[in-house]
């Protein structure tokens, strides 16, 4: 047995070492947040939100079309993913105890681990190749495929949290089973599901990789789902890898806008889930 002094020293050493882990993890985070804030606010102006991108060499210009494009893409994605994801979640919670449920659960688990770029290839094959052109629809579909697994899982979890007595009470009053699921169980779980939706939307809005070859990019305003569309994330990417100093500044500013958008959605989700927890108490 080593001396007590040595053992205490080793104990202290590992405490400090694990503390170093915390520091190492937080330094990049703080550096990143600081730079996005400081670099991003330097060029922030109202016209950045409302104007089209300016050509190289010209000052001014913004990412207005990218912001609109991101909203369009997320809207398309939500229109596809919300019914499918929530529907799958309801199915899993209500009827998913058999072999079919296990199979679906396994598939969603696998799907949630699939890299987003691979999802992009799938959307390319399904939409771009058939339509012979890049489109917002393809990008939206790719984002939807990314949202479905997480939505299905969290919907299932929240529905399983609904007290059984509530369901039984409704059934005992003679309400049919489907109506109970829809009007009683789903409504009770709604708060949780909204949180899950917000988080999924935030993730989709920050996604870049599958958009590169589905919605591509666009220098102009676009609201047509069958046309290529700009998005904030792809614009950040293009600005960042460009050789122009001016565009690098724009990349930081666009990153700030994206971070604010994603942060806002996350914050909203957080506030909602906290309110619900307090209400349940």
């Amino acid at each position, binding site marked *: 047995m080593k001396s007590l002094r040595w053992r205490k020293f080793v104990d202290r050493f590992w405490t400090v070492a694990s503390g170093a882990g915390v520091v190492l993890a937080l330094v990049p985070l703080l550096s990143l947040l600081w730079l996005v804030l400081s670099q991003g606010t330097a060029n922030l102006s109202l016209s950045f939100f409302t104007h089209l991108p300016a050509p190289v060499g010209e000052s001014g210009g913004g990412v207005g079309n990218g912001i609109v494009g991101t909203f369009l893409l997320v809207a398309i994605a939500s229109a596809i993913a919300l019914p*499918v994801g929530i529907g799958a979640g309801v199915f899993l919670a209500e009827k998913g105890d058999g072999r079919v449920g296990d199979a679906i659960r396994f598939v969603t688990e696998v799907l949630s681990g699939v890299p987003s770029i691979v999802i992009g290839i799938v959307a390319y094959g399904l939409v771009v190749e058939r339509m012979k052109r890049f489109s917002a629809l393809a990008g939206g579909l790719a984002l939807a495929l990314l949202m479905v697994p997480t939505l299905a899982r969290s919907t299932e979890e929240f529905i399983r949290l609904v007290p059984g007595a509530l369901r039984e009470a409704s059934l005992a009053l003679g309400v049919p089973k489907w109506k109970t699921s829809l009007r009683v169980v789903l409504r009770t779980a709604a708060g949780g599901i909204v949180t899950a939706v917000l988080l999924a939307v935030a993730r989709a809005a920050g996604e870049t990789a599958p958009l590169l070859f589905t919605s591509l990019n666009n220098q102009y305003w676009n609201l047509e789902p069958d046309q290529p569309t700009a998005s904030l994330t792809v614009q950040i990417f293009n600005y960042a890898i460009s050789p122009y100093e001016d565009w690098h500044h724009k990349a930081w500013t666009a990153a700030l806008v994206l971070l604010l958008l994603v942060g806002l959605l996350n914050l909203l989700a957080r506030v909602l889930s906290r309110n619900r927890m307090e209400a349940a108490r």
Partner: protein
Amino acid sequence: MTAGLILAELGGQSLLAFHKLGLIHFLAGSDWDPVQDKFGALPFIYGTLVTSGIALLVAVPVSVGLALFLSEMGPKALRRPVAFGIEVLAAIPSVIFGLWGLFVLVPWLRDAVEPALQAVLGFLPFFDGPPIGLGYLAAGLILAIMILPTVASVTIEVLKTVPLPLKEGALALGATRWEAIRMTVLPYARPGIVGAALLGLGRALGETMAVTMVIGNAPEIHASLFAPGYSLPAVIANEFAEATGNVHVSALAALGLVLFGLTVLLNALAHLLIRAVSQGAPRGAP
């Protein structure tokens, strides 16, 4: 529910490439020259594995340290802010990590870290060549930062499942806090920590944007970590939209299939390990 059908689509697309190029030839070839219709996947597989390896080597010790600090050793007042920081880290879009990597991490590596490493360990082949910043090391480090929240949060969950009496027993027998952790907590949680690392690895393999922006994008194989390379997701991201010719497109889709296979395998393994811990009865727990 349509999920299963969609996976078939990917398979169909890339089968075409395997057919035209030959499976072995495709996977083991190291020439990638779309102009001459030469498609070898090896530089990308190599780059993906090397960068993910670096990421794991860096992220796992840091995450385990962080998780132990948060759940066992650190002051309670720090727990909430640090946990919040980790959540924020997890929510940041990957393209912003890439931006930060390109303009902060890469210059720092080029001007400070790589010359220093070279001065001390320059005789090793891993630290050979001019320090240009862009390359395997930069990509590995940015991946480490990105998978850290995954590994750390799963590790924290795993540590929570360690039965308290186990640790209390060790403490009651006179062990110091670290000894109790080393002899009871860590052995019990080990399979789960391995599972957390595998989940992180799965994320690292598929991460696209940040890697694309800092790896240098050269389809070559180098022993040196300073050299520019390429990874599976990065080449798909860069070339897919502009790919001309059916073979090029389906070769890229085939790279996607390789990537898909790797991640599915890893994720399945990780989930099995984590489930084994959370259901108790791990091997080797005293």
